[in-house]
């Protein structure tokens, strides 16, 4: 299968960031924000859903962040960032106008070129919803190519759910099936409680006719995949998005190795049959 968007091989110096600035910043949760970046000149190439970019904050440093925006949107680049370190926290708190260096897009994308009418199942844990969002937006834009579109989104608590307005809009759509679940309910929560594996075990599923995209903590993806495999889904229909330390983003620095994979090059999106044996060995 081929990618949806052709990408030229020849690039400008992939080490040099292009200059963007924060056009808008939307608070998602107490520790997470979605940045809308605008270019000041040359833009990065179009991205595939699931790919990541390297974001540089002047004088602070650079980190890999999955692109969370609409792949069809021109001139804007959206990324959803949880503040966990110096650079991510600087980005999360960056006021409008802050300059941000961008390299990318890098890595593999979700394979969305399914047989016409195939069902699409997206399973997100926490911030894992961010890299899945471009796939969902792509599928909704090309809605007729797909059968059912099912999104199972989990978070630790209701306060940690991302894209809540969009989730509410999705819930109102007749052509999307949405299941939101939280590990722990708080006051006022009337929805599902439990890990994403719980609804996965119960939802209507046509395993032979479904592609599953999983993104979240590794244990969540392992257990979700197990549920799907147990329900008869072929392993090659499952894709996962994996994370390791990335410094260069272009397969030159070695940091993002996971066994035979260089995740910046062979990932982050990896077919489950490739990923599965690599996720069972501790500290691989």
């Amino acid at each position, binding site marked *: 299968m081929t990618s949806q968007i052709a990408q030229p091989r020849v690039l400008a110096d992939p*080490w*040099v960031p292009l200059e963007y600035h924060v056009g808008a910043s939307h608070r998602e949760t107490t520790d997470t924000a979605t940045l809308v970046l605008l270019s000041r000149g040359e833009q990065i190439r179009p991205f595939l859903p699931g790919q990541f970019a390297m974001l540089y904050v*002047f*004088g602070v440093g650079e980190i890999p962040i999955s692109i969370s925006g609409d792949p069809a949107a021109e001139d804007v680049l959206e990324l959803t960032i949880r503040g966990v370190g110096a650079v991510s926290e600087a980005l999360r708190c960056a006021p409008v106008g802050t300059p941000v260096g961008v390299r990318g897009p890098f890595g593999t994308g979700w394979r969305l070129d399914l047989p016409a009418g195939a069902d699409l199942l997206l399973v997100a844990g926490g911030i894992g919803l961010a890299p899945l969002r471009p796939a969902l937006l792509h599928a909704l834009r090309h809605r007729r190519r797909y059968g059912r579109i099912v999104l199972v989104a989990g978070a630790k608590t209701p306060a940690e759910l991302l894209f809540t307005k969009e989730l509410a809009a999705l819930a109102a759509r007749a052509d999307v099936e949405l299941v939101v679940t939280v590990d722990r309910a708080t006051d006022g929560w009337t929805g599902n409680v439990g890990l994403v594996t719980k609804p996965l075990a119960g939802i209507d599923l046509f395993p032979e006719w479904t592609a599953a995209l999983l993104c979240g903590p590794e244990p969540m993806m392992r257990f979700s995949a197990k549920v799907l495999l147990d329900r008869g889904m072929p392993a090659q229909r499952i894709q996962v998005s994996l994370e390791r330390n990335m410094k260069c983003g*272009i397969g*030159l*620095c*070695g940091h993002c190795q996971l066994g035979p994979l260089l995740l910046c090059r062979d990932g982050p999106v990896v077919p489950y049959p490739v990923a599965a044996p690599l996720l069972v060995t501790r*500290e691989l």
Partner: protein
Amino acid sequence: MVVLGREGLDRLVEVLMERGYRVIGPTVRDEAIVLDELTSASQLPFGWGVEVGPGQYRLWRRADGAAFKNSAGPQSWKQFLHPAREKLWSADRDGSGFTVTATDSEPPRYAFLGVRGCDLAAIRVLDRVLDRGEHPDSRYHRRREGIFIVGVNCTDPGETCFCVSMGTGPAVSPQPPPPCGGQGVGPTPHQPGYDLVLTESVDQRGHHFLTEAGSERGAEVLAELPTRPAGPGEVEAAETAVARAATAMGRRMPAADLPAVLAATRESERWSEIASRCLTCANCTMVCPTCFCTTTEDVTDLTGDHAERWQHWASCFELDYSYIHGGEVRTSGASRYRQWLTHKLGTWHDQFGGSGCVGCGRCIAWCPVGIDLTAEVDALVTEAGEEPR
């Protein structure tokens, strides 16, 4: 084939310098044979041999005055092709944004004098990693493309050498031809990948170097040197010396399907046992001629208006190497040694289509506790029940 004398070697260094090359070759410093810029062939390690073993490296005086009869030292050519520290770019604030300026200096033109088979193979490994992917390292590419290589066939391997079992020596081997159907414009003759190759010998005819050109510019340089045609039996004698070297290796890598063995032994107790000896000091990765890992460092000056990004060598033995938010992936020494060894000999095949090991033995000699990767692989092969091939 022609023969160069001692004075011919002197002239070789001069001719290369006249042609604008910075000549890099072996020389003795700090009780080791290091690689440094030479201005005269007299700086070569004439009369120095090397005794190596696990965790051991000692120079000794050779009676024959030979310059290249010593096994690999602590350094390799990667420090010139892929420097330990390099500035990638600088950035300056301007108004509300910043402007990035890529480092764009003219690369030095190096001539590498005395590249053994193992080390030429290591350069080819670096080529595949840094220069053949989707995003080639443009700095490496520019340094690499101008290099003049004087290879040396090895006739005196050391106790830690195992190039024969890795297929990289002791002879400097020509680059394999590109696969059929490769893209190219016009009929380009295949080049062996070195410009000159020497075989040193000291015998009743004196101290001399059987020499062959491997490229057009190699032939041009050779034409400027005082040479004589090879005498009767000289070519055969050199071939015999190299063939003898092939049987004198101190070690060998087990002939097994190493990617399969290492994938099957990820959970072996052996890794913890090795870790009880390993100091995770990263020496093996620093001396390895193919270990290419780097990290980046972002720095600013005191004003905060000028920032730079530097790249420097990194090692999979560092805790920070595998850091992602929340902690390091590989905290135990066992997992870090496993990463190094399985990458070098196993997953390198998956990533870059060949082994990352060339059999130079540096990691054995420069390991402070003398861990021998050939012995460790032997144990893992046995554990995996792999039939020797």
